[in-house]
């Protein structure tokens, strides 16, 4: 008789060996033996983790990448996570970015041979592998995960522009260096301004946005003036996708420019101190008469708003995956705590109310993953499903992290356990890439004509 076996089933310490044996007989892995052969084939008694179960549903190359990202995260990110969060000013991201480049994680936004995504995966959905990696990285550390993912966000406008000259001038050379040489040059994405946060992520707000960053046409290019704020990787990026309106025009003239960090007049301002995801910086960028040549225009003139909005359609599922990682990290560390900690005579893991909470968290994570992967089923990311995935995942992650902290009481808020770090990290996913309120409006906007607005006669 195994007392732990009894506690697992939540029963109240039956005294008899007989009841214990009955319980064991009734467990599916044993009860199945009494079925006929075909019935037994229809029962899934495989003992595997939920991670493995979900991974098995992916195409082969995606499975392989997911495992590779898991190993990378546990070997290289996990040892840095606690210290990078506690002392972000002392954290140097260079080494981890170089490792990420060597492993191909900085060049997933293009298909082979330019990037590291297999063609059949890329043309199924260009960001599926990025989302898989995002979840693994952020399970260990949200800040380091953001460092790597913000780089992909910075590159995204180059790809999304669909502009062949941009591909040939910038995207392909940049990626070839990363893919073939393990070059860890970093990119960043700069849209937010001090007076325009939500406004640059939503149509109605955008039409009334008060933008300050302008581009004035001069011979051979444009002069940029203005500033951006809350830019992830802003302080360390080599190349920044900067969105500016043309002088004398409004947001409809927004154009994307590729600014290099050594261009005269470009400077990094204040580094924001965030509640979480602290290993990644969020900086102010200042543009003081920065000359950007015509060759550094990403896509067409005045295509910036559309590029920006479409970049968000591709990045929101990834942010959802990052949030999922935060939640999963909190869950895994809580599970580990419950395995190792006694309450009275038995481990926490054997208490039914603890099992209930853990199961509830697992359900939330599984259903969130399903929502995110669903949004990545097509070649083009859909605005509605992308926004839905981001909202669902970020809210779910915050809920799971809160549950995890509450479950283990006072131990939950100690930095050393790594759970409160996930909690702080998860909270940001409800805000950036468009607040969850803005993302809801994005769904309405996208579905308006097809199913929201009043039906016409008949």
């Amino acid at each position, binding site marked *: 008789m195994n007392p732990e076996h009894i506690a697992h089933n939540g029963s109240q310490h039956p005294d008899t060996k007989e009841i214990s044996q009955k319980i064991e007989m009734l467990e599916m892995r044993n009860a199945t033996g009494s079925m006929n052969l075909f019935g037994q084939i229809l029962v899934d008694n495989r003992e595997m983790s939920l991670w493995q179960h979900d991974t098995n549903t992916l195409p082969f190359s995606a499975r392989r990448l997911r495992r590779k990202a898991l190993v990378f995260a546990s070997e290289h990110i996990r040892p840095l996570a606690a210290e990078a969060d506690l002392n972000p000013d002392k954290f140097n991201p260079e080494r981890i970015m170089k490792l990420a480049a060597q492993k191909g994680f900085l060049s997933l936004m293009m298909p082979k041979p330019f990037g590291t995504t297999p063609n059949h995966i890329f043309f199924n959905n260009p960001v599926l592998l990025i989302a898989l990696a995002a979840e693994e990285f952020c399970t260990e550390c949200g800040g380091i995960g953001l460092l790597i993912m913000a780089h992909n966000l910075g590159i995204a406008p180059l790809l999304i522009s669909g502009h062949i000259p941009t591909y040939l001038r910038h995207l392909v050379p940049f990626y070839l260096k990363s893919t073939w040489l393990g070059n860890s040059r970093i990119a960043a994405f700069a849209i937010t301004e001090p007076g325009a*946060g939500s406004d640059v992520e939503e149509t109605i*707000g955008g039409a*009334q946005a008060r933008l300050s960053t302008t581009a004035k046409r001069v011979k051979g290019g444009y002069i940029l003036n203005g500033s951006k704020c*809350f830019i992830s990787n802003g302080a360390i990026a080599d190349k920044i996708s900067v969105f500016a309106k043309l002088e004398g025009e409004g947001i409809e003239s927004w154009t994307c420019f590729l600014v290099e960090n050594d261009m005269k007049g470009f400077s990094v301002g204040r580094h924001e*101190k965030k509640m979480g995801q602290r290993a990644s910086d969020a900086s102010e960028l200042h543009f003081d008469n920065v000359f950007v040549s015509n060759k550094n225009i990403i896509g067409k003139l005045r295509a910036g708003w559309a590029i920006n909005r479409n970049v968000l359609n591709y990045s929101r599922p990834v942010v959802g995956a990052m949030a999922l990682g935060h939640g999963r990290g909190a869950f895994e560390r809580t599970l580990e705590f419950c395995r190792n900690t006694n309450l009275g005579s038995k481990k926490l893991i054997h208490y039914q109310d603890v099992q209930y909470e853990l199961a509830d968290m697992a359900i939330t994570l599984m259903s969130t993953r399903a929502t995110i992967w669903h949004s990545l089923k097509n070649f083009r990311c859909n605005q509605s499903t992308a926004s839905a995935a981001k909202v669902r995942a970020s809210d779910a992650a915050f809920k799971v992290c809160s549950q995890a902290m509450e479950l283990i009481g*006072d131990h939950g*808020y100690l*930095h050393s356990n790594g759970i409160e770090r996930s909690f702080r990290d998860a909270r940001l996913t409800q805000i950036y890439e468009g607040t969850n309120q803005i993302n809801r409006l994005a769904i309405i906007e996208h579905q308006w004509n097809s199913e929201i607005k009043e039906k016409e006669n008949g």
Partner: protein
Amino acid sequence: MTSNQLISKEDLIQFEELAKAYKTKTLGPLFDNDLPDGDLSMLNEAMDTAFNIGLCAAPDPSQPGYEYGIWGKTINETGLLSSVLLLLQIAEECGGIAALLHWQGLASQCLIYGKEQQKTAIKRVGLCIQNQSGLPSFEQVADSVEAISPDSCKYHREDSGYVINGTKYFVYCMEPIDHYLVFADCDNNLAWFLVPIDTKGVSAEAVSHRTGLRACTLNNVSFDNVLVDEEYRIDNDNALNLLRKTLTIAWTGLSAIAAGIARGAVNQAFQYASERYQGGTVIENHPIIQGLLSHSYARAETARSMVMSLAYLEPDKTESMMKAASAKLVCLDLCFAAVTDSLQVLGGYGYMEDFGMEKRLRDITVLKSSFGSPGYLKKFIFNCHKE
């Protein structure tokens, strides 16, 4: 119903004015910088001021706060209302400092309630109740005394005193501490001991970095064959009753702090929404923001009402413990939701350290889990109800 009518309305207004003045004049400079938890190097001075103006209770009758400080002597005659109001006010500015005053006051109240003895030179006391697995098992506080959890501090008699062994965890205290008040067990005989920190065998280990309430010092305190004289046992053979009262007041105070934090957050969110321009207008004109603000307000005010109802409890009754536990369980949920929604109104700025909103979220997150997790409270309420 206690004799809260002995506190006049004018007196209550004076209490609130005292707290407001302390908030503005003493705490204001602490937060006049971009440090995430204020300038903690000024904390000692702020606490000295709290003692001097009678806001902070101490067990020494010569101290200004002995009677009217938070959880001072007068709560035994006039109820908890005045202390609740003080905590509500101070927590609007800083949950950590409110928590400091709360824990100091609670320890003082235990000493005041307990055995009469020489209490001069006792000023800052750390309350040691929690074991590694958390608060004492609920059976013992619901009238019938069952075995305490195995990892509790133990004591036994020796010569003319007692020897204490074990470790207490998550002891919130105000530095520089001079005594610990320890709850211990000897074969189901409960006891409370006052232990000077320089007693041989006492050692404290600072708990590592944590999410919030960073103004408080948080220690794990070990007692290794600590010998104390008879006079340092303070419970008058009524240790269980003292524990009951302590838990009730503790949860009442934590709920009050949470309600204060929530009100501070909601006020800040309303202010921000009236100034921030997005979507063609100030954001308070957007229905989505109005919804967030009003829901936050409703939650914060409901929590506040619940806390105010606790102010009339008789703390040493089992029913009062249940109400206080219920309030902590529900209030913290309401206040947490109010604070996180208030943070959402501020958008990216809400997440940045220099706006002060993320600190409120961190503080209330700690309050939710500390000194009785939701799981513990649910079990506690169920067993009290069964009794």
